[in-house]
């Protein structure tokens, strides 16, 4: 009963995402036609529409729902129910928990209406600037993430008619990406992720509070330690696809290896790179288990002096970072918006023949958003699985393990690429690595709960029974 309800909910969610993405396409196409008619530059309208729909609607909605999801999902992982007490006082909804979503509305109202407090000795301008930096830089990263493929505007329903009535050429490309064809691509992500730490450091310094300063310092040193590994872990992918643009990498991953049996996904070619990038991004996001800059039980955090929506910006920027990481990882390593089927099966060609270009684009976009949601879930699952790292362990993991491993990964990838430019050797090595990790996980005997043995009496360990 409950399983059927949840499954129906998930299917409904997919349909909702598809409908929303179709609307996004139509909005982008229509605005493109309008700007094309006004000053002959349709890409301006497409970019403006995508900025609003993708950044302000898609990313913001997913990020703010993640605030509820974090509590609800962590509850499910810990055998609890989670927040369900906030109710909407509307007729018919009074007794409905609505999956805890009213909690997020209540949180928003609380954040916005709380006192906006500035400590007397805080450095006013920087104190105000810090949350903006944290929020804006996390936000802008999504500009280079391709959500759905390029479609000619004439293929989009309603838009072609509009173009004809306004007398505009309807063959300009429309894709759900804010900045398509932007050459720096991945470097743009590194650059703005690097600026994000200014938010943390400035918040710590401008608050004029020792605990906040400590948090800011920890944030900056963590950033320095992981930024290099972060960049190095993607060099392999850059060499493989010979580009920095995410949409080109996405298209490159649609290629079939071994006669189309295996899609050339980044995770198959660069499993070590995937693990390194995921880990380093976690540390960059300051998400647990790398949450040394904030520690409720010790230094509170770099945002200790912030209240109301200023704190809310720090919090939401963390969740936006989660969404962006999900988007980037799925674009780089999980085939982007391409369906998880071997190219030899021809699923996408069949869909194109059945649904047309626009239908295929919507399906692929839905696929991408679902991948992002699953990756967000994975990040939260890791956060609720792992204990927190000690600060010196964070540093030694970054400098002594991730960085050498990333360098070794670059060297090995380069050699394999030189030996076999068709990527098949790389895929064999990558699959062997995956097989090694999976086999080790499955086969190594579980460590049994240990009992501490003392002479003369027995203390049972593990089960809690004596």
């Amino acid at each position, binding site marked *: *009963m*409950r*399983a059927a309800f*949840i*499954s129906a909910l998930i299917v409904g969610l997919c349909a909702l995402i598809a409908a929303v993405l179709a609307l996004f396409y139509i909005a982008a196409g229509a605005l493109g036609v309008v700007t094309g008619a006004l000053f002959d530059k349709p890409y301006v309208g497409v970019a403006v529409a995508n900025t609003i729909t993708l950044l302000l609607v898609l990313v913001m909605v997913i990020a703010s729902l993640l605030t509820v999801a974090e509590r609800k*999902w962590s509850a*499910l*992982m*810990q*055998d*609890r*129910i989670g927040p369900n007490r906030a109710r909407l006082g509307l007729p018919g909804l009074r007794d409905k928990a609505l999956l805890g979503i009213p909690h997020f509305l209540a949180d928003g109202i609380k954040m916005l209406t709380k006192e906006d407090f500035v400590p007397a000795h805080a450095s006013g301008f920087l104190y105000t600037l810090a949350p903006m930096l944290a929020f804006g830089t996390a936000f802008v990263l999504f500009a280079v993430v391709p959500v759905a493929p390029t479609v000619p505007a004439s293929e989009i329903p309603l838009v072609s008619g509009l173009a004809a009535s306004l007398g505009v050429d309807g063959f300009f490309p429309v894709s759900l990406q804010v900045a398509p064809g932007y050459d720096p691509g991945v470097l743009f992500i590194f650059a703005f992720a690097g600026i994000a730490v200014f938010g943390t450091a400035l918040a710590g310094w401008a608050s004029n509070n020792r605990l906040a300063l400590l948090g800011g310092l920890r944030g900056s040193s963590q950033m320095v330690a992981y930024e290099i590994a972060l960049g190095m872990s993607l060099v392999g992918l850059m060499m493989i696809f010979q580009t920095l643009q995410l949409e080109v990498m996405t298209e490159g991953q649609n290629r079939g290896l071994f006669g189309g049996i295996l899609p050339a996904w980044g995770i198959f070619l660069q499993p070590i790179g995937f*693990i390194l990038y995921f880990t380093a991004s976690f540390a960059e996001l300051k998400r647990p288990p790398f949450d040394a800059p904030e520690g409720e039980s010790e230094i509170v955090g770099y945002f200790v002096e912030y209240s109301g929506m200023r704190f809310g910006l720090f919090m939401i920027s963390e969740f936006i970072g989660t969404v962006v990481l999900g988007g980037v990882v799925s674009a780089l390593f999980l085939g982007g918006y391409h369906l998880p089927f071997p190219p030899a099966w021809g699923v996408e060609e069949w869909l194109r023949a059945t649904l047309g270009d626009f239908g295929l684009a919507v399906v692929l976009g839905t696929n991408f958003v679902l991948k992002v949601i699953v990756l967000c879930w*994975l990040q939260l*699952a*890791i956060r*609720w*699985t*792992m204990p927190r790292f000690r600060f010196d362990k964070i540093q030694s993991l970054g400098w002594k393990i991730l960085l050498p491993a990333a360098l070794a990964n670059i060297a090995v990838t380069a050699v394999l690429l030189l030996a076999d430019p068709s990527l098949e050797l790389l895929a064999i090595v990558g699959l062997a690595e995956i097989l090694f*990790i999976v086999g*080790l*996980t499955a086969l*190594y005997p*579980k*460590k049994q709960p*240990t*009992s*501490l*043995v*003392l*002479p*003369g*009496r*027995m203390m*049972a360990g593990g*089960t809690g*029974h004596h």
Partner: protein
Amino acid sequence: MASTKEIKRTAEETAQLSWYQRLFVPEVIRGLAVTTRHFLRNLFGGRDPSPDFAYRKGSLGNQVATLQYPEERAPYPVGYRGTHRLVPREDGKPRCVACYMCATICPAQCIYIEAGEYEDDPIEKYPTVFVIDQLRCVVCGLCVEACPKDAIRMDTYQHTPPEYTREGFVYPIERLLKGPAVSHPSDPWLRRKDSAQPEDQHFPLHGVAEHSTEPVEPREPYPVGPNHPAPPVFTEEEVRKASGS
């Protein structure tokens, strides 16, 4: 004791990570598998809303043991000492004969009684005022034990509800006289040759256990569930090994 050395080594070994654990990634994946299993079970599995939450059916899949308190209330165990009630007779008058036994034995001195007299009743005395201050009450149940007439009971299975004023916790006789009526064959107003013991609807075990020779069926042992694992059974060898003898 030859085992001291072995014990030390065991403790050191438990503190150290094996090479496999140092690889970290497989252990993270294993941890994720545990988290994911719980997540999926609790997401898709039906929840047994039985208020007896410790013995919920885990077979539906859901492992959540949360009690949604105001809507789901855990049943109190049999014999729970709830708030008092003055037991009524069949005719609605209190069984109490205002003997002051309960007020005398009460260690918290929370019972206050004033006695009146019936003109036409085999029981002459009755309480005109019977007050229990629930804030003073220590819920020891001595009043129930002391009562010679089975006139005060704590079988309401309710705890004292909250009040806005202190005065609200001082329960007058109107508030105490409630629940099902109770009669005993020995009651003077019922003493007839053919009188049988009437059934106590509210507490069916009462009469059976105290006044009958019929055996009472014991409560069934609870099943072993996700929240009540079976206690571990140690073999003799394991005990010997663990105790180092």
